Protein backbone atom coordinates (compact mmCIF):
# COMPACT_ATOMS: atom_id res chain seq x y z
CA UNK A 1 0.00 0.00 0.00
CA UNK A 2 2.80 2.36 0.89
CA UNK A 3 4.70 1.62 -2.31
CA UNK A 4 1.49 2.26 -4.24
CA UNK A 5 1.14 5.67 -2.61
CA UNK A 6 4.76 6.53 -3.36
CA UNK A 7 4.30 5.48 -6.96
CA UNK A 8 1.17 7.55 -7.29
CA UNK A 9 2.92 10.51 -5.72
CA UNK A 10 5.76 10.04 -8.16
CA UNK A 11 3.37 9.98 -11.09
CA UNK A 12 1.73 13.16 -9.86
CA UNK A 13 5.11 14.83 -9.43
CA UNK A 14 6.13 13.86 -12.94
CA UNK A 15 2.88 15.20 -14.40
CA UNK A 16 3.39 18.50 -12.60
CA UNK A 17 6.98 18.49 -13.85
CA UNK A 18 5.72 18.07 -17.41
CA UNK A 19 3.38 21.06 -17.14
CA UNK A 20 6.14 23.10 -15.57
CA UNK A 21 8.65 22.32 -18.33
CA UNK A 22 6.05 23.00 -21.02
CA UNK A 23 5.05 26.29 -19.49
CA UNK A 24 8.65 27.38 -18.94
CA UNK A 25 9.52 26.85 -22.58
CA UNK A 26 6.50 28.77 -23.80
CA UNK A 27 7.06 31.51 -21.24
CA UNK A 28 10.57 32.16 -22.44
CA UNK A 29 9.76 31.73 -26.12
CA UNK A 30 10.60 34.92 -28.02
CA UNK A 31 7.86 37.07 -29.56
CA UNK A 32 5.11 39.24 -28.13
CA UNK A 33 2.26 37.00 -27.03
CA UNK A 34 -0.17 39.88 -26.76
CA UNK A 35 0.40 40.73 -30.40
CA UNK A 36 -0.12 37.13 -31.44
CA UNK A 37 -3.42 37.01 -29.56
CA UNK A 38 -4.48 40.34 -31.03
CA UNK A 39 -3.79 39.16 -34.55
CA UNK A 40 -5.87 36.09 -33.91
CA UNK A 41 -8.76 38.22 -32.60
CA UNK A 42 -8.74 40.85 -35.27
CA UNK A 43 -7.59 39.09 -38.42
CA UNK A 44 -6.42 41.34 -41.23
CA UNK A 45 -6.07 44.25 -38.85
CA UNK A 46 -2.37 45.13 -38.86
CA UNK A 47 -2.16 48.36 -36.93
CA UNK A 48 -3.26 47.19 -33.55
CA UNK A 49 -3.49 50.08 -31.10
CA UNK A 50 -1.35 49.87 -27.97
CA UNK A 51 -4.44 50.22 -25.76
CA UNK A 52 -5.82 47.00 -27.18
CA UNK A 53 -2.51 45.24 -26.61
CA UNK A 54 -2.47 46.55 -23.05
CA UNK A 55 -6.00 45.29 -22.57
CA UNK A 56 -5.00 41.83 -23.78
CA UNK A 57 -1.98 41.80 -21.48
CA UNK A 58 -4.24 42.51 -18.54
CA UNK A 59 -6.85 40.02 -19.61
CA UNK A 60 -4.31 37.20 -20.01
CA UNK A 61 -2.13 38.30 -17.07
CA UNK A 62 0.83 38.51 -19.41
CA UNK A 63 2.64 41.00 -17.18
CA UNK A 64 2.17 38.94 -14.05
CA UNK A 65 5.13 37.11 -12.52
CA UNK A 66 6.03 33.62 -13.75
CA UNK A 67 4.51 31.67 -10.87
CA UNK A 68 1.24 33.61 -11.06
CA UNK A 69 0.89 32.97 -14.78
CA UNK A 70 1.78 29.33 -14.38
CA UNK A 71 -0.84 28.69 -11.74
CA UNK A 72 -3.42 30.56 -13.76
CA UNK A 73 -2.65 28.50 -16.83
CA UNK A 74 -2.52 25.23 -14.88
CA UNK A 75 -5.94 25.94 -13.43
CA UNK A 76 -7.32 26.38 -16.94
CA UNK A 77 -5.71 23.16 -18.09
CA UNK A 78 -7.09 21.24 -15.13
CA UNK A 79 -10.56 22.55 -15.94
CA UNK A 80 -10.11 21.14 -19.45
CA UNK A 81 -9.75 24.56 -21.03
CA UNK A 82 -6.76 24.31 -23.32
CA UNK A 83 -7.30 27.62 -25.04
CA UNK A 84 -7.91 28.70 -28.60
CA UNK A 85 -5.50 28.56 -31.50
CA UNK A 86 -3.98 31.96 -32.23
CA UNK A 87 -4.04 31.46 -35.97
CA UNK A 88 -7.26 29.59 -36.74
CA UNK A 89 -9.24 30.67 -33.66
CA UNK A 90 -10.63 27.17 -33.24
CA UNK A 91 -10.37 25.54 -29.82
CA UNK A 92 -7.16 23.57 -29.47
CA UNK A 93 -9.14 20.54 -28.47
CA UNK A 94 -11.01 20.56 -31.80
CA UNK A 95 -7.80 20.82 -33.80
CA UNK A 96 -6.42 17.91 -31.85
CA UNK A 97 -9.43 15.68 -32.38
CA UNK A 98 -9.56 16.57 -36.09
CA UNK A 99 -5.98 15.48 -36.66
CA UNK A 100 -5.69 12.61 -34.24
CA UNK A 101 -7.34 10.22 -36.68
CA UNK A 102 -4.72 10.56 -39.41
CA UNK A 103 -1.85 9.94 -37.02
CA UNK A 104 -3.55 6.98 -35.39
CA UNK A 105 -4.36 5.47 -38.80
CA UNK A 106 -0.76 5.85 -39.93
CA UNK A 107 0.64 4.45 -36.72
CA UNK A 108 -1.67 1.47 -36.51
CA UNK A 109 -1.24 0.54 -40.18
CA UNK A 110 2.52 0.72 -39.84
CA UNK A 111 2.43 -1.22 -36.62
CA UNK A 112 0.40 -3.98 -38.22
CA UNK A 113 2.68 -4.25 -41.27
CA UNK A 114 5.87 -3.88 -39.29
CA UNK A 115 4.96 -6.42 -36.63
CA UNK A 116 3.77 -8.96 -39.16
CA UNK A 117 7.00 -8.60 -41.11
CA UNK A 118 9.14 -8.74 -37.97
CA UNK A 119 7.29 -11.79 -36.84
CA UNK A 120 7.80 -13.66 -40.11
CA UNK A 121 11.43 -12.65 -40.36
CA UNK A 122 12.34 -13.63 -36.81
CA UNK A 123 10.35 -16.87 -36.96
CA UNK A 124 12.23 -17.91 -40.09
CA UNK A 125 15.53 -16.82 -38.59
CA UNK A 126 14.96 -18.82 -35.43
CA UNK A 127 13.63 -21.92 -37.17
CA UNK A 128 16.63 -22.07 -39.48
CA UNK A 129 19.53 -20.80 -37.37
CA UNK A 130 22.89 -20.02 -38.99
CA UNK A 131 21.46 -20.14 -42.48
CA UNK A 132 21.27 -17.32 -44.97
CA UNK A 133 17.77 -16.55 -43.58
CA UNK A 134 19.09 -16.02 -40.11
CA UNK A 135 21.99 -13.86 -41.28
CA UNK A 136 19.68 -11.91 -43.58
CA UNK A 137 17.31 -11.13 -40.72
CA UNK A 138 20.18 -9.81 -38.61
CA UNK A 139 21.54 -7.70 -41.47
CA UNK A 140 18.13 -6.26 -42.32
CA UNK A 141 17.44 -5.38 -38.71
CA UNK A 142 20.75 -3.59 -38.30
CA UNK A 143 20.23 -1.68 -41.54
CA UNK A 144 16.72 -0.77 -40.48
CA UNK A 145 17.86 0.47 -37.09
CA UNK A 146 20.38 2.79 -38.76
CA UNK A 147 18.19 3.90 -41.65
CA UNK A 148 17.22 7.58 -41.54
CA UNK A 149 13.47 7.31 -42.14
CA UNK A 150 13.30 10.60 -44.07
CA UNK A 151 15.86 9.24 -46.50
CA UNK A 152 14.01 5.97 -46.92
CA UNK A 153 10.91 8.06 -47.57
CA UNK A 154 12.69 9.99 -50.32
CA UNK A 155 14.01 6.77 -51.87
CA UNK A 156 10.51 5.28 -51.90
CA UNK A 157 9.06 8.43 -53.44
CA UNK A 158 11.81 8.41 -56.06
CA UNK A 159 11.37 4.74 -56.91
CA UNK A 160 7.65 4.11 -56.57
CA UNK A 161 6.09 7.51 -57.27
CA UNK A 162 8.51 9.24 -59.60
CA UNK A 163 9.86 6.38 -61.68
CA UNK A 164 7.09 3.84 -61.57
CA UNK A 165 4.30 6.33 -61.07
CA UNK A 166 2.29 3.82 -59.08
CA UNK A 167 1.41 5.79 -55.97
CA UNK A 168 0.97 9.42 -55.04
CA UNK A 169 4.00 10.90 -53.33
CA UNK A 170 2.67 13.65 -51.08
CA UNK A 171 -0.55 14.41 -49.28
CA UNK A 172 -3.35 12.62 -47.48
CA UNK A 173 -6.70 11.26 -48.49
CA UNK A 174 -6.91 7.99 -50.36
CA UNK A 175 -5.69 4.59 -49.36
CA UNK A 176 -2.89 5.01 -51.90
CA UNK A 177 -1.58 7.95 -49.94
CA UNK A 178 -1.19 5.72 -46.92
CA UNK A 179 0.96 3.01 -48.49
CA UNK A 180 4.35 4.68 -48.81
CA UNK A 181 4.29 6.45 -45.43
CA UNK A 182 3.25 3.34 -43.58
CA UNK A 183 5.87 1.28 -45.41
CA UNK A 184 8.53 3.74 -44.29
CA UNK A 185 7.46 3.59 -40.67
CA UNK A 186 6.87 -0.16 -40.83
CA UNK A 187 10.43 -0.75 -41.99
CA UNK A 188 11.78 0.80 -38.84
CA UNK A 189 9.30 -1.12 -36.67
CA UNK A 190 10.22 -4.34 -38.41
CA UNK A 191 13.92 -3.73 -37.88
CA UNK A 192 13.72 -2.96 -34.18
CA UNK A 193 11.18 -5.68 -33.45
CA UNK A 194 12.94 -8.42 -35.42
CA UNK A 195 15.95 -7.97 -33.24
CA UNK A 196 13.92 -8.30 -30.05
CA UNK A 197 11.65 -11.10 -31.18
CA UNK A 198 14.58 -13.13 -32.42
CA UNK A 199 16.30 -12.79 -29.04
CA UNK A 200 13.15 -13.69 -27.13
CA UNK A 201 12.44 -16.71 -29.32
CA UNK A 202 16.01 -17.93 -28.94
CA UNK A 203 15.64 -17.56 -25.20
CA UNK A 204 12.43 -19.55 -25.32
CA UNK A 205 14.29 -22.29 -27.20
CA UNK A 206 16.90 -22.33 -24.47
CA UNK A 207 14.45 -23.32 -21.77
CA UNK A 208 15.00 -26.82 -20.40
CA UNK A 209 11.52 -28.15 -21.13
CA UNK A 210 12.03 -27.74 -24.88
CA UNK A 211 14.65 -30.50 -24.81
CA UNK A 212 12.23 -32.73 -22.92
CA UNK A 213 9.59 -32.16 -25.60
CA UNK A 214 12.10 -33.11 -28.29
CA UNK A 215 12.99 -36.28 -26.46
CA UNK A 216 9.32 -37.18 -26.29
CA UNK A 217 9.31 -37.05 -30.07
CA UNK A 218 7.18 -33.97 -30.58
CA UNK A 219 7.87 -32.51 -34.03
CA UNK A 220 9.86 -29.28 -34.28
CA UNK A 221 6.98 -27.51 -35.99
CA UNK A 222 4.69 -28.18 -33.08
CA UNK A 223 7.30 -27.21 -30.49
CA UNK A 224 7.73 -23.94 -32.30
CA UNK A 225 4.07 -23.07 -32.74
CA UNK A 226 2.91 -24.30 -29.34
CA UNK A 227 5.72 -23.22 -27.04
CA UNK A 228 8.30 -20.92 -28.55
CA UNK A 229 5.81 -18.54 -30.15
CA UNK A 230 3.79 -18.09 -27.00
CA UNK A 231 6.86 -17.28 -24.95
CA UNK A 232 7.97 -14.59 -27.33
CA UNK A 233 4.73 -12.64 -27.42
CA UNK A 234 4.48 -11.07 -24.00
CA UNK A 235 7.94 -9.51 -23.73
CA UNK A 236 7.75 -8.22 -27.28
CA UNK A 237 4.43 -6.51 -26.54
CA UNK A 238 5.88 -4.87 -23.47
CA UNK A 239 8.77 -3.53 -25.48
CA UNK A 240 6.39 -2.04 -28.01
CA UNK A 241 4.69 -0.17 -25.21
CA UNK A 242 7.97 1.19 -23.94
CA UNK A 243 9.11 2.19 -27.40
CA UNK A 244 6.00 4.24 -28.03
CA UNK A 245 7.98 7.46 -27.94
CA UNK A 246 10.15 6.34 -30.83
CA UNK A 247 7.04 5.23 -32.71
CA UNK A 248 5.51 8.67 -32.26
CA UNK A 249 8.69 10.37 -33.39
CA UNK A 250 8.83 8.14 -36.44
CA UNK A 251 5.21 9.01 -37.25
CA UNK A 252 5.95 12.71 -37.04
CA UNK A 253 8.98 12.54 -39.33
CA UNK A 254 7.03 10.46 -41.82
CA UNK A 255 4.08 12.86 -41.74
CA UNK A 256 6.32 15.83 -42.39
CA UNK A 257 8.32 14.13 -45.14
CA UNK A 258 5.22 13.00 -46.99
CA UNK A 259 3.37 16.26 -46.26
CA UNK A 260 0.56 14.31 -44.64
CA UNK A 261 -1.89 15.93 -42.32
CA UNK A 262 -1.82 14.72 -38.74
CA UNK A 263 -0.60 15.72 -35.31
CA UNK A 264 3.03 15.89 -36.43
CA UNK A 265 2.26 18.38 -39.17
CA UNK A 266 0.07 20.39 -36.82
CA UNK A 267 2.90 20.50 -34.27
CA UNK A 268 5.50 21.60 -36.82
CA UNK A 269 3.15 24.18 -38.37
CA UNK A 270 2.07 25.68 -35.08
CA UNK A 271 5.63 25.75 -33.78
CA UNK A 272 6.75 27.74 -36.83
CA UNK A 273 3.80 30.14 -36.59
CA UNK A 274 4.27 30.42 -32.79
CA UNK A 275 0.74 29.22 -32.13
CA UNK A 276 1.53 28.65 -28.46
CA UNK A 277 -1.76 27.15 -27.20
CA UNK A 278 -1.60 24.43 -29.85
CA UNK A 279 2.08 23.75 -29.26
CA UNK A 280 1.68 23.54 -25.51
CA UNK A 281 -1.27 21.24 -25.71
CA UNK A 282 0.36 18.84 -28.16
CA UNK A 283 3.65 18.68 -26.30
CA UNK A 284 1.84 18.07 -23.06
CA UNK A 285 -0.38 15.49 -24.63
CA UNK A 286 2.56 13.47 -25.97
CA UNK A 287 4.44 13.62 -22.69
CA UNK A 288 1.42 12.77 -20.55
CA UNK A 289 0.42 9.90 -22.81
CA UNK A 290 3.93 8.50 -22.55
CA UNK A 291 4.00 8.71 -18.76
CA UNK A 292 0.51 7.37 -18.21
CA UNK A 293 0.90 4.45 -20.61
CA UNK A 294 4.20 3.46 -19.06
CA UNK A 295 2.77 3.66 -15.57
CA UNK A 296 -0.08 1.41 -16.63
CA UNK A 297 2.31 -1.10 -18.20
CA UNK A 298 4.43 -0.96 -15.06
CA UNK A 299 1.46 -1.51 -12.81
CA UNK A 300 0.17 -4.41 -14.89
CA UNK A 301 3.57 -6.06 -14.83
CA UNK A 302 3.78 -5.73 -11.08
CA UNK A 303 0.32 -7.08 -10.58
CA UNK A 304 1.16 -10.05 -12.76
CA UNK A 305 4.48 -10.84 -11.17
CA UNK A 306 4.85 -10.50 -7.40
CA UNK A 307 8.57 -11.25 -7.71
CA UNK A 308 9.02 -7.82 -9.23
CA UNK A 309 7.89 -6.11 -6.06
CA UNK A 310 11.35 -6.08 -4.58
CA UNK A 311 13.09 -5.06 -7.78
CA UNK A 312 10.80 -2.09 -8.10
CA UNK A 313 12.48 -0.36 -5.22
CA UNK A 314 15.80 -0.22 -7.00
CA UNK A 315 14.64 0.68 -10.47
Amino acid at each position, binding site marked *: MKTLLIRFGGLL*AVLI*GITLITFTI*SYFAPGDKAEAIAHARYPGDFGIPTEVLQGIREEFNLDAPFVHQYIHWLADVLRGDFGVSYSSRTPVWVIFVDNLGETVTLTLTSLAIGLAAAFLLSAVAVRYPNTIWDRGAVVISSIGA*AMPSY*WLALLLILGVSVHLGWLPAYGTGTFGHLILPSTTLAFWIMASQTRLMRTFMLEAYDQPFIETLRLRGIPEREIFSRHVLRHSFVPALTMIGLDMASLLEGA*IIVELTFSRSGLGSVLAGSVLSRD*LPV*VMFLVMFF*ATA*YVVINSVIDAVQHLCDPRNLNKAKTS
Partner: protein
Amino acid sequence: MSLSQSFSISKGQLVDPLRHFTRQIALVCLALLSLWSLALWLTPYEPAAADFLDRLAPPSAAHWAGTDHLGRDIATRLLYGAGWSLGLSLAISLTGFVVGTFVGIFAARSGPAGDFAVMRVTDSFFAFPELIAAVTFAGLFGPSTTNLVIALMMVSWMKFARLARALTVNLGESDFITQARLNGLSSLLILWRHLLPNILPSLLVLWTNSWSRTILSVSGLSFLGFGIQPPSAEWGAMLLDGKAYMQTAPHIMIFPGLAVLLAVMVINLTGDRFRDLMAGKT
Protein backbone atom coordinates in the same frame (compact mmCIF):
# COMPACT_ATOMS: atom_id res chain seq x y z
CA MET B 1 58.26 -13.49 -17.36
CA SER B 2 59.87 -16.91 -17.65
CA LEU B 3 59.12 -19.26 -20.49
CA SER B 4 57.30 -21.81 -18.38
CA GLN B 5 54.98 -19.17 -16.97
CA SER B 6 54.04 -17.76 -20.34
CA PHE B 7 53.14 -21.29 -21.41
CA SER B 8 51.06 -22.04 -18.38
CA ILE B 9 48.62 -19.20 -19.10
CA SER B 10 47.45 -18.37 -22.56
CA LYS B 11 48.34 -14.82 -23.38
CA GLY B 12 44.89 -13.68 -24.40
CA GLN B 13 43.53 -14.56 -21.00
CA LEU B 14 45.65 -11.95 -19.30
CA VAL B 15 44.56 -9.07 -21.51
CA ASP B 16 41.40 -7.38 -20.38
CA PRO B 17 39.24 -7.77 -23.52
CA LEU B 18 37.30 -4.58 -22.89
CA ARG B 19 40.44 -2.52 -22.55
CA HIS B 20 41.96 -4.20 -25.57
CA PHE B 21 38.89 -3.47 -27.69
CA THR B 22 38.75 0.14 -26.50
CA ARG B 23 42.37 0.58 -27.47
CA GLN B 24 41.71 -0.84 -30.92
CA ILE B 25 38.73 1.44 -31.41
CA ALA B 26 40.78 4.44 -30.33
CA LEU B 27 43.42 3.57 -32.93
CA VAL B 28 40.82 3.18 -35.66
CA CYS B 29 39.25 6.52 -34.71
CA LEU B 30 42.63 8.20 -34.80
CA ALA B 31 43.33 6.73 -38.23
CA LEU B 32 39.93 7.86 -39.52
CA LEU B 33 40.43 11.32 -38.09
CA SER B 34 43.82 11.77 -39.77
CA LEU B 35 42.44 10.36 -43.02
CA TRP B 36 39.60 12.85 -42.78
CA SER B 37 41.88 15.84 -42.22
CA LEU B 38 44.11 14.64 -45.04
CA ALA B 39 41.09 14.48 -47.36
CA LEU B 40 39.97 17.96 -46.31
CA TRP B 41 43.43 19.23 -47.14
CA LEU B 42 43.67 17.39 -50.44
CA THR B 43 40.27 18.22 -51.90
CA PRO B 44 40.57 20.94 -54.57
CA TYR B 45 37.06 22.28 -53.85
CA GLU B 46 35.56 24.57 -51.26
CA PRO B 47 32.32 23.38 -49.59
CA ALA B 48 30.50 26.62 -50.42
CA ALA B 49 32.07 27.45 -53.77
CA ALA B 50 29.27 27.58 -56.33
CA ASP B 51 29.96 26.83 -59.99
CA PHE B 52 26.90 27.58 -62.09
CA LEU B 53 28.47 26.15 -65.24
CA ASP B 54 28.65 22.74 -63.65
CA ARG B 55 25.29 22.30 -61.88
CA LEU B 56 23.65 18.96 -61.08
CA ALA B 57 26.54 17.02 -62.65
CA PRO B 58 26.44 13.26 -62.05
CA PRO B 59 29.40 11.52 -60.39
CA SER B 60 32.56 11.71 -62.49
CA ALA B 61 36.35 11.62 -62.12
CA ALA B 62 36.40 15.34 -61.31
CA HIS B 63 33.41 15.22 -58.92
CA TRP B 64 33.37 11.79 -57.25
CA ALA B 65 29.85 12.25 -55.95
CA GLY B 66 28.70 14.80 -58.52
CA THR B 67 27.70 18.41 -57.91
CA ASP B 68 24.53 19.91 -56.43
CA HIS B 69 22.08 22.53 -57.66
CA LEU B 70 24.65 25.29 -57.15
CA GLY B 71 27.50 23.34 -58.71
CA ARG B 72 29.16 22.61 -55.36
CA ASP B 73 31.18 19.42 -55.11
CA ILE B 74 29.10 16.93 -53.09
CA ALA B 75 32.02 14.77 -51.98
CA THR B 76 33.74 17.79 -50.46
CA ARG B 77 30.51 18.88 -48.82
CA LEU B 78 30.05 15.41 -47.37
CA LEU B 79 33.54 15.62 -45.86
CA TYR B 80 32.81 18.99 -44.28
CA GLY B 81 29.36 17.76 -43.31
CA ALA B 82 30.90 14.97 -41.24
CA GLY B 83 32.12 17.69 -38.93
CA TRP B 84 28.56 18.91 -38.45
CA SER B 85 26.65 15.64 -38.45
CA LEU B 86 29.13 13.48 -36.56
CA GLY B 87 31.04 16.10 -34.60
CA LEU B 88 28.07 18.03 -33.33
CA SER B 89 26.18 14.90 -32.33
CA LEU B 90 29.32 13.59 -30.66
CA ALA B 91 29.53 16.75 -28.57
CA ILE B 92 25.82 16.59 -27.71
CA SER B 93 25.85 12.94 -26.71
CA LEU B 94 29.07 13.35 -24.70
CA THR B 95 27.47 16.20 -22.78
CA GLY B 96 24.46 14.00 -22.11
CA PHE B 97 26.77 11.21 -21.01
CA VAL B 98 28.68 13.34 -18.51
CA VAL B 99 25.68 15.26 -17.15
CA GLY B 100 23.45 12.17 -16.95
CA THR B 101 26.09 10.05 -15.24
CA PHE B 102 26.68 12.78 -12.71
CA VAL B 103 22.95 13.20 -12.03
CA GLY B 104 22.42 9.44 -11.74
CA ILE B 105 25.26 8.90 -9.29
CA PHE B 106 24.18 11.94 -7.33
CA ALA B 107 20.62 10.58 -7.08
CA ALA B 108 21.80 7.17 -5.97
CA ARG B 109 24.04 8.68 -3.33
CA SER B 110 21.78 11.38 -1.95
CA GLY B 111 19.41 9.42 0.24
CA PRO B 112 15.77 8.47 -0.37
CA ALA B 113 14.28 11.97 -0.50
CA GLY B 114 16.94 13.44 -2.77
CA ASP B 115 16.81 10.37 -4.95
CA PHE B 116 13.04 10.65 -5.30
CA ALA B 117 13.21 14.34 -6.20
CA VAL B 118 16.06 14.04 -8.70
CA MET B 119 14.58 11.00 -10.41
CA ARG B 120 11.12 12.56 -10.74
CA VAL B 121 12.69 15.57 -12.42
CA THR B 122 14.52 13.15 -14.72
CA ASP B 123 11.24 11.35 -15.43
CA SER B 124 9.57 14.65 -16.28
CA PHE B 125 12.21 15.43 -18.88
CA PHE B 126 12.16 11.83 -20.07
CA ALA B 127 8.45 12.06 -20.82
CA PHE B 128 9.02 14.38 -23.76
CA PRO B 129 9.90 12.36 -26.83
CA GLU B 130 13.32 13.60 -27.99
CA LEU B 131 12.28 14.73 -31.42
CA ILE B 132 9.11 16.46 -30.25
CA ALA B 133 11.02 18.39 -27.62
CA ALA B 134 13.68 19.36 -30.14
CA VAL B 135 11.15 20.45 -32.79
CA THR B 136 9.27 22.50 -30.22
CA PHE B 137 12.31 24.19 -28.75
CA ALA B 138 14.15 24.78 -32.00
CA GLY B 139 10.94 25.95 -33.65
CA LEU B 140 9.82 28.36 -30.94
CA PHE B 141 13.24 29.86 -30.35
CA GLY B 142 14.05 30.02 -34.04
CA PRO B 143 15.73 27.29 -36.09
CA SER B 144 19.48 27.64 -35.64
CA THR B 145 22.46 25.50 -34.84
CA THR B 146 22.69 26.84 -31.29
CA ASN B 147 19.04 26.18 -30.53
CA LEU B 148 19.27 22.71 -32.03
CA VAL B 149 22.24 21.91 -29.80
CA ILE B 150 20.50 23.27 -26.70
CA ALA B 151 17.31 21.37 -27.53
CA LEU B 152 19.09 18.06 -28.09
CA MET B 153 21.28 18.47 -25.02
CA MET B 154 18.20 19.02 -22.86
CA VAL B 155 16.83 15.65 -23.91
CA SER B 156 20.07 13.66 -24.10
CA TRP B 157 20.98 13.11 -20.45
CA MET B 158 18.01 11.27 -18.93
CA LYS B 159 18.82 7.79 -20.14
CA PHE B 160 22.32 8.10 -18.72
CA ALA B 161 20.92 9.34 -15.43
CA ARG B 162 18.57 6.38 -15.15
CA LEU B 163 21.20 3.81 -16.04
CA ALA B 164 23.92 5.37 -13.89
CA ARG B 165 21.54 5.49 -10.94
CA ALA B 166 20.46 1.86 -11.34
CA LEU B 167 24.04 0.67 -11.69
CA THR B 168 25.20 2.72 -8.72
CA VAL B 169 22.38 1.48 -6.51
CA ASN B 170 23.21 -2.11 -7.42
CA LEU B 171 26.93 -1.66 -6.85
CA GLY B 172 26.46 0.27 -3.62
CA GLU B 173 25.37 -2.94 -1.93
CA SER B 174 28.27 -4.98 -3.22
CA ASP B 175 30.93 -6.43 -0.97
CA PHE B 176 33.94 -4.76 -2.49
CA ILE B 177 32.50 -1.33 -1.80
CA THR B 178 31.91 -2.36 1.81
CA GLN B 179 35.52 -3.50 1.99
CA ALA B 180 36.73 -0.20 0.57
CA ARG B 181 34.69 1.67 3.17
CA LEU B 182 36.04 -0.49 5.97
CA ASN B 183 39.53 0.26 4.70
CA GLY B 184 38.84 3.94 5.17
CA LEU B 185 38.70 5.13 1.56
CA SER B 186 36.96 8.46 1.11
CA SER B 187 33.68 8.56 -0.81
CA LEU B 188 35.37 10.38 -3.66
CA LEU B 189 38.09 7.77 -3.94
CA ILE B 190 35.53 4.97 -3.83
CA LEU B 191 33.63 6.72 -6.61
CA TRP B 192 36.77 7.06 -8.70
CA ARG B 193 38.36 3.67 -8.12
CA HIS B 194 35.46 1.34 -7.53
CA LEU B 195 32.25 2.82 -8.84
CA LEU B 196 33.19 4.51 -12.11
CA PRO B 197 35.35 1.71 -13.57
CA ASN B 198 32.48 -0.70 -13.00
CA ILE B 199 29.62 1.36 -14.34
CA LEU B 200 31.45 2.95 -17.27
CA PRO B 201 31.34 -0.01 -19.68
CA SER B 202 27.52 -0.16 -19.63
CA LEU B 203 27.31 3.61 -19.93
CA LEU B 204 29.68 3.50 -22.90
CA VAL B 205 27.39 1.07 -24.70
CA LEU B 206 24.48 3.41 -24.03
CA TRP B 207 26.61 6.27 -25.27
CA THR B 208 27.29 4.65 -28.67
CA ASN B 209 23.54 4.19 -28.92
CA SER B 210 22.93 7.79 -27.93
CA TRP B 211 25.50 9.09 -30.39
CA SER B 212 23.96 7.28 -33.34
CA ARG B 213 20.47 8.38 -32.33
CA THR B 214 21.70 11.96 -32.08
CA ILE B 215 23.18 11.76 -35.58
CA LEU B 216 19.74 10.72 -36.83
CA SER B 217 18.10 13.53 -34.85
CA VAL B 218 20.52 16.24 -35.97
CA SER B 219 20.28 15.37 -39.64
CA GLY B 220 16.55 14.65 -39.39
CA LEU B 221 15.79 17.99 -37.78
CA SER B 222 18.00 19.77 -40.30
CA PHE B 223 16.18 17.97 -43.08
CA LEU B 224 12.87 19.14 -41.66
CA GLY B 225 14.20 22.69 -41.47
CA PHE B 226 14.48 22.91 -37.68
CA GLY B 227 18.20 22.45 -37.36
CA ILE B 228 21.35 23.47 -39.11
CA GLN B 229 20.43 25.76 -41.95
CA PRO B 230 21.69 25.65 -45.53
CA PRO B 231 24.23 26.52 -46.88
CA SER B 232 25.99 24.64 -44.05
CA ALA B 233 27.04 21.27 -45.39
CA GLU B 234 25.23 19.21 -42.75
CA TRP B 235 24.12 15.88 -44.22
CA GLY B 236 20.44 16.36 -43.41
CA ALA B 237 20.51 19.90 -44.78
CA MET B 238 22.14 18.54 -47.95
CA LEU B 239 19.32 16.02 -48.24
CA LEU B 240 16.86 18.87 -48.03
CA ASP B 241 18.73 20.59 -50.90
CA GLY B 242 18.56 17.41 -52.92
CA LYS B 243 14.85 16.82 -52.34
CA ALA B 244 13.81 19.39 -54.95
CA TYR B 245 16.07 17.89 -57.62
CA MET B 246 15.20 14.30 -56.87
CA GLN B 247 13.88 13.64 -60.36
CA THR B 248 16.72 15.08 -62.43
CA ALA B 249 19.69 14.54 -60.13
CA PRO B 250 18.98 11.81 -57.55
CA HIS B 251 22.65 11.61 -56.57
CA ILE B 252 22.29 14.84 -54.57
CA MET B 253 20.04 13.07 -52.07
CA ILE B 254 21.49 9.56 -52.37
CA PHE B 255 24.97 10.28 -51.02
CA PRO B 256 24.12 12.29 -47.87
CA GLY B 257 21.55 9.68 -46.85
CA LEU B 258 24.04 6.91 -47.45
CA ALA B 259 26.58 8.75 -45.31
CA VAL B 260 24.11 8.96 -42.40
CA LEU B 261 23.15 5.30 -42.78
CA LEU B 262 26.75 4.10 -42.82
CA ALA B 263 27.89 6.28 -39.92
CA VAL B 264 24.98 5.19 -37.72
CA MET B 265 25.44 1.55 -38.64
CA VAL B 266 29.16 1.53 -37.88
CA ILE B 267 28.59 3.16 -34.49
CA ASN B 268 25.75 0.76 -33.66
CA LEU B 269 27.79 -2.29 -34.58
CA THR B 270 30.73 -1.06 -32.51
CA GLY B 271 28.41 -0.65 -29.54
CA ASP B 272 26.98 -4.14 -30.09
CA ARG B 273 30.45 -5.64 -30.18
CA PHE B 274 31.37 -3.85 -26.96
CA ARG B 275 28.23 -5.13 -25.27
CA ASP B 276 28.92 -8.68 -26.41
CA LEU B 277 32.42 -8.47 -24.96
CA MET B 278 30.97 -7.25 -21.68
CA ALA B 279 28.45 -10.07 -21.58
CA GLY B 280 31.10 -12.62 -22.42
CA LYS B 281 33.11 -11.51 -19.46
CA THR B 282 30.54 -12.05 -16.80
